[in-house]
């Protein structure tokens, strides 16, 4: 009995869902009698079965509804919205009762339904010529005395023939049944399957034949008074086969039914069980209620008016059967692969080869077909939307038209189950928040009726669903103020956000746009749940919205969770798989690439199109020695991954290829390792683990993002506003310092144990050289012998330092901690009294001293900047050039050139300054000057030089963009030694080469 009840429940849920749809259709086309008849029949079946099973409460409601529909069917009553609402109410009640039955609650006491029943009956009484026989007739029918009135109208036949225990025809395989116990598979797919596993031809032929036979007979039936009757006949047959039914052999159905079912005594018709013989239903009940339930064959020609409900043939198969099938097929695939590998070695045997390739082909086909059995059309997730919107619009006076496209797009039923709720939520949101009331819509020039469109299609292994409405769209400004009010971000952050970023705020937890909580949505759990559910599926959601025009959501989900496309990676010799859907880019780093891994604080980052992307070392995550080395010497790869808004890179050793893999769950014993979402077997039989990128993403968001966001924002801004300075903020000796980032050549670490004292200087060994290091308070930090680092390990003595390099010399400043990188217009607020600081500025509400790097450099290299001092100590024996040039472009262009050819350069902006330098320091091999300059041009400058006796012999090389005969002549008159074209670098270097030596010869006296 329990099995019977279970089946009844599953089936009734489906039938009710179908009625739901049909009622909606009926609302649109109240004159459609076929619909009325269909609903009537289905209700009648339910009622009958209830009576049989003793579900009196349900029977009462069903009966009252049926009475009402009966009146309509007999044209004694026409459909009105009131009736529609009452029927919907009845439908909901029936659903409730089914639930109650399932939970073993009240399903016998009819008192709670009395009001509803009365309402339904009252409505049916309203019919002007309501004859009292109608209800009576129904009662008779429910007592299964179906053969007493053989001359009844076809409709009546249909209603009474359906005996209580007979199974209602499974009309719509896509109908949504929450409690479905099995999966429904179109028969043709299963037939293919059977063919694939080599069903003996005889059997198949027999099957075909009997199918043909029944189909061949059916058209005869259609010659009877109405098509309905033949359908009714099918149903009638089921009751005949049923032991309870004591129907005599002569029934009206017989005239219409096919020969195999002629004998009512035969519980097993000659057709094989897989055939869609209507009588199988009866057999089911009588013999083994648990066996598959088979829907009567309804040839298409029979049901031209309701093709959707009748065309599909399906049987119900337990999910575990399908799962087993899938498992077996994957084993078969692996065995096939092994066989192929075995025989590839010895390629002589032609016969084996042929057989193998045949096996390969069939296995592949079989795999495809088996996978299809898990697929269901997506619209079974949508099936409730029309009803939902109907109820919603009735409550809110809105008018909404739902447009569905691509409902037959197929998706794995597991995905389907999981996507249902998020979709429902989104449609509700669109209806509740998106679509405006008719008068508002009118005002803004839109049609009164709003449109919600839902569309699905396949795209590269994914199913894309687009949900759009033509409502008022998202108001970014409102979202902004709301988000600020909720503390989701600061006004400052909000200011720099794009329209799209602002709109995405609706996906953030705790954000709901509805000003008031309605019974539809606005309860604060909203789009964030939708997004997280979709992402759990390995999918993504995106939105675009135009204020006043509407909102458009795009949901992308994988077709199946069982087979995914994954990239196979290698980390320290271990292969792992990462789902491809989350991967956006692959990059090579290391010596053969321009890309480098950099470090912001301790976070490894990759700079990608002006964005710093945090990097995860996968080797470290799986407990192996890290791959990332700070020198970037190793050749590695970075897999850029995006999970929602979090983007990060995974460092791996190797990237293999993309494969379609069958995801197998991990056993309980290792299921708690969150990093892995499953495992799979590759073509060569080896097992690899599948990385769950969500786990990695959560690590990023947990630890490092805060640091990085700051730095990242700066970099983004930096690319926009070039007039600002990037200031590196750091702590040292309890003080906050800042230094322009452009001055720092490296941020690295030193070890306190490597610091040595050399007179007044501290030096450290760094990369095989001695590097002077400055401690801002004068002495190295004292490291307690038992000091611990943040992990509680003995402190290794490593501290960060900033390295400054210039012209082959380097020095370091020891610091304690890097705080951030700030982008500021550097306004030093007052000149500091502190030595070593240029002044202070306020950064993020903290007074920050701006380091006077010159001071510290001088303390180490007194002569670093002293190239212009006459009594400089000769650090180098390099030849010296005085370069006078105002254009920074040419400065940047020429200085490397001069440096490369071995000169030391003193740089000034114009002739006046040049003269000043020369008056104090004549120790230059040559003066190189531009001609077009402010203050004092090149000609005047040369004349001034020549006026001074000590500089009479100083070579003056003029560089100019225009070198005409006239110019050269004028230049020589003014005292130029050479006059060269700025663009001819080769000549410039050749000329300068001469003066390197000249100083050694005759220039020495200038120094004397």
């Amino acid at each position: 009995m329990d099995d019977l009840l279970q089946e009844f429940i599953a089936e009734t849920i489906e039938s009710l869902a179908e009625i739901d749809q049909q009622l909606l259709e009926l609302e649109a086309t109240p004159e459609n009698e076929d619909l009325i008849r269909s609903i009537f029949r289905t209700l009648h079946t339910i009622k009958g079965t209830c009576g049989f099973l003793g579900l009196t409460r349900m029977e009462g409601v069903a009966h009252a509804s049926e009475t009402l529909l009966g009146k309509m069917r007999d044209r004694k009553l026409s459909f009105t919205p009131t009736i529609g609402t009452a029927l919907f109410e009845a439908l909901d009640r029936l659903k409730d009762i089914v639930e109650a039955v399932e939970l073993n609650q009240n399903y016998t006491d009819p008192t709670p339904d009395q009001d509803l029943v009365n309402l339904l009956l009252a409505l049916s009484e309203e019919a002007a010529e309501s004859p009292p026989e109608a209800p009576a007739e129904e009662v008779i029918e429910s007592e299964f005395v179906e053969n007493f009135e053989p001359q009844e109208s076809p409709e009546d036949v249909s209603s009474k023939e359906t005996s209580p225990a007979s199974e209602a025809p499974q009309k719509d395989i896509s109908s949504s049944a929450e409690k479905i116990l099995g999966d429904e598979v179109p028969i043709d797919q299963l037939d293919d399957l059977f063919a694939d596993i080599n069903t003996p031809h005889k059997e198949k032929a027999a099957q075909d034949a009997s199918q043909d036979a029944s189909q061949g007979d059916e058209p005869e039936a259609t010659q009877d008074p109405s098509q309905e009757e033949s359908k009714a006949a099918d149903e009638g047959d089921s009751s005949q086969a049923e032991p309870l039914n004591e129907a005599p052999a002569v029934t009206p159905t017989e005239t219409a039914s096919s020969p195999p079912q002629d004998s009512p005594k035969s519980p097993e018709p000659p057709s094989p069980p897989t055939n869609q013989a209507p009588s199988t239903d009866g057999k089911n009940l009588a013999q083994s209620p648990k066996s598959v339930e088979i829907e009567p064959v309804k040839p298409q020609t029979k049901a031209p008016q309701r093709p959707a409900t009748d065309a599909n043939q399906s049987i119900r198969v337990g999910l575990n059967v399908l799962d087993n099938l899938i498992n077996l097929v994957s084993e078969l695939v692996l065995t096939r692969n092994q066989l192929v590998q075995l025989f590839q070695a010895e390629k002589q045997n032609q016969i084996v080869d042929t057989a193998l390739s045949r096996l390969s082909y069939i296995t592949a086909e079989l795999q495809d077909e088996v996978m299809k059995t898990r697929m269901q059309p997506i619209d079974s997730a949508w099936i409730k939307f029309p009803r939902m919107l109907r109820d919603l619009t009735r409550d809110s006076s809105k008018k909404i038209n739902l447009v569905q496209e691509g409902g037959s797009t197929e998706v794995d039923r597991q995905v389907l189950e999981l996507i249902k709720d998020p979709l429902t939520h989104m449609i509700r949101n669109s209806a509740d928040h998106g679509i405006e009331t008719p008068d508002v819509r009118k005002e803004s020039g839109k049609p009164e009726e709003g449109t919600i469109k839902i569309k699905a299609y396949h795209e590269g292994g994914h199913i894309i669903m687009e949900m759009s409405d033509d409502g008022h769209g998202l108001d970014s400004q409102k979202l902004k103020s709301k988000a600020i009010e909720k503390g989701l971000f600061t006004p400052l952050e909000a200011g720099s956000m794009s329209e799209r970023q602002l709109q995405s705020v609706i996906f953030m937890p705790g954000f709901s746009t509805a000003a008031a909580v309605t019974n539809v949505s606005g309860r604060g759990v909203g789009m964030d749940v939708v997004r997280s559910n979709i992402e759990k599926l390995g999918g993504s959601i995106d939105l675009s919205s135009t204020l006043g025009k509407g909102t458009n959501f795009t949901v992308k989900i994988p077709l199946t969770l069982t087979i995914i496309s994954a990239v196979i990676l290698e980390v320290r010799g271990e292969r792992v798989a990462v789902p491809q859907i989350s991967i956006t880019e692959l990059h090579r780093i290391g010596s053969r690439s321009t890309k480098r891994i950099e470090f912001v604080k301790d976070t490894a980052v990759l700079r990608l199109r002006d964005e710093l992307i945090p990097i995860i070392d996968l080797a470290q995550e799986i407990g192996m020695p890290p791959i990332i080395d700070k020198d970037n010497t190793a050749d590695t790869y970075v897999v850029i991954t995006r999970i929602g808004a979090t983007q990060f890179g995974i460092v791996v050793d190797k990237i293999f290829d993309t494969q379609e893999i069958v995801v197998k769950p991990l056993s309980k014993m290792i299921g708690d390792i969150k990093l892995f979402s499953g495992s799979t077997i590759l073509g060569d039989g080896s097992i690899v683990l599948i990385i769950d990128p969500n786990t990695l993403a959560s690590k990023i968001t947990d630890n490092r993002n805060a640091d990085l966001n700051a730095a990242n924002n700066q970099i983004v801004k930096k690319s926009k506003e070039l007039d600002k300075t990037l200031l590196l903020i750091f702590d040292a000796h309890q003080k906050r310092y800042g230094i322009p980032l452009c001055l720092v050549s490296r941020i690295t670490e030193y070890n306190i144990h490597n610091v040595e004292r050399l007179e007044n200087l501290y030096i450290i060994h760094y990369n095989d050289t001695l590097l002077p290091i400055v401690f801002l308070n004068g002495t190295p930090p004292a490291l307690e012998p038992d000091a611990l680092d943040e992990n509680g390990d003995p402190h290794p003595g490593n501290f960060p330092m900033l390295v400054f390099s210039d012209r082959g010399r380097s020095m370091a400043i020891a610091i304690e901690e890097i705080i951030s990188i700030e982008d500021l217009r550097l306004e030093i607020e007052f000149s500091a009294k502190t030595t070593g600081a240029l002044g202070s500025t306020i950064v993020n509400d903290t007074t920050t001293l701006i380091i006077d790097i010159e001071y510290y450099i001088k303390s180490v290299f007194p002569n670093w900047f002293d190239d212009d001092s006459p009594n400089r100590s000769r650090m180098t024996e390099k030849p010296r050039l005085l370069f006078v040039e105002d254009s920074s472009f040419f400065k940047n262009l020429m200085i490397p050139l001069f440096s490369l050819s071995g000169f030391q350069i003193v740089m000034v902006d114009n002739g006046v300054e040049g003269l000043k330098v020369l008056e104090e320091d004549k120790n230059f091999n040559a003066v190189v000057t531009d001609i077009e300059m402010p203050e004092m041009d090149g000609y005047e400058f040369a004349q001034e030089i020549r006026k001074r006796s000590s500089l009479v012999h100083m070579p003056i090389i003029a560089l100019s963009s225009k070198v005409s005969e006239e110019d050269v002549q004028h230049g020589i008159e003014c005292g130029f030694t050479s006059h060269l074209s700025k663009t001819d670098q080769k000549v410039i270097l050749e000329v300068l080469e001469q003066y390197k030596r000249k100083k050694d010869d005759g220039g020495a006296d200038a120094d004397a």
Partner: protein
Amino acid sequence: MQTPDTFFKNKHTQYILFSIENQGFCINVDEIQDVMDTPKMTRIPLCTSEIAGLLNLRGRIVTAMDMAVTLSLRTSHDPKKSAMAIIVDTESDLYSLLVDHVGEIISIAPGDIESKSNAVDPRWKNFAVGIYKYGDELIVILNTQKLLDMGEE
């Protein structure tokens, strides 16, 4: 005449013998699906030391547990010593118990099992059903379910 009581008491159960570090153990044969040489395995990072890896048994993924570690006979998985795999099918997953050697199948009457007491080494108390004297050797009879439950605690 056997009374029903003694009949059930003497109804023999078959056990498969195996040894780790020369200590004999056995488990009920009914729970075993397969015995094979330990094949190539995929290591699982981050897991506990008793889990030796994943192996591919005709397309099904099997979690391999090194019994030597579970039974505290060795501290870590030793691929050279754990040469044999006994495949056990639980309701949800397949597991493989890695042992050093697999011996014959023996019948033991329930009456011959010394129910666990002080005779059982404390390391194995959680897994042991009892002790069986097999020739000169003392064999520890293990409860498969308990061996596998350990990982979930």
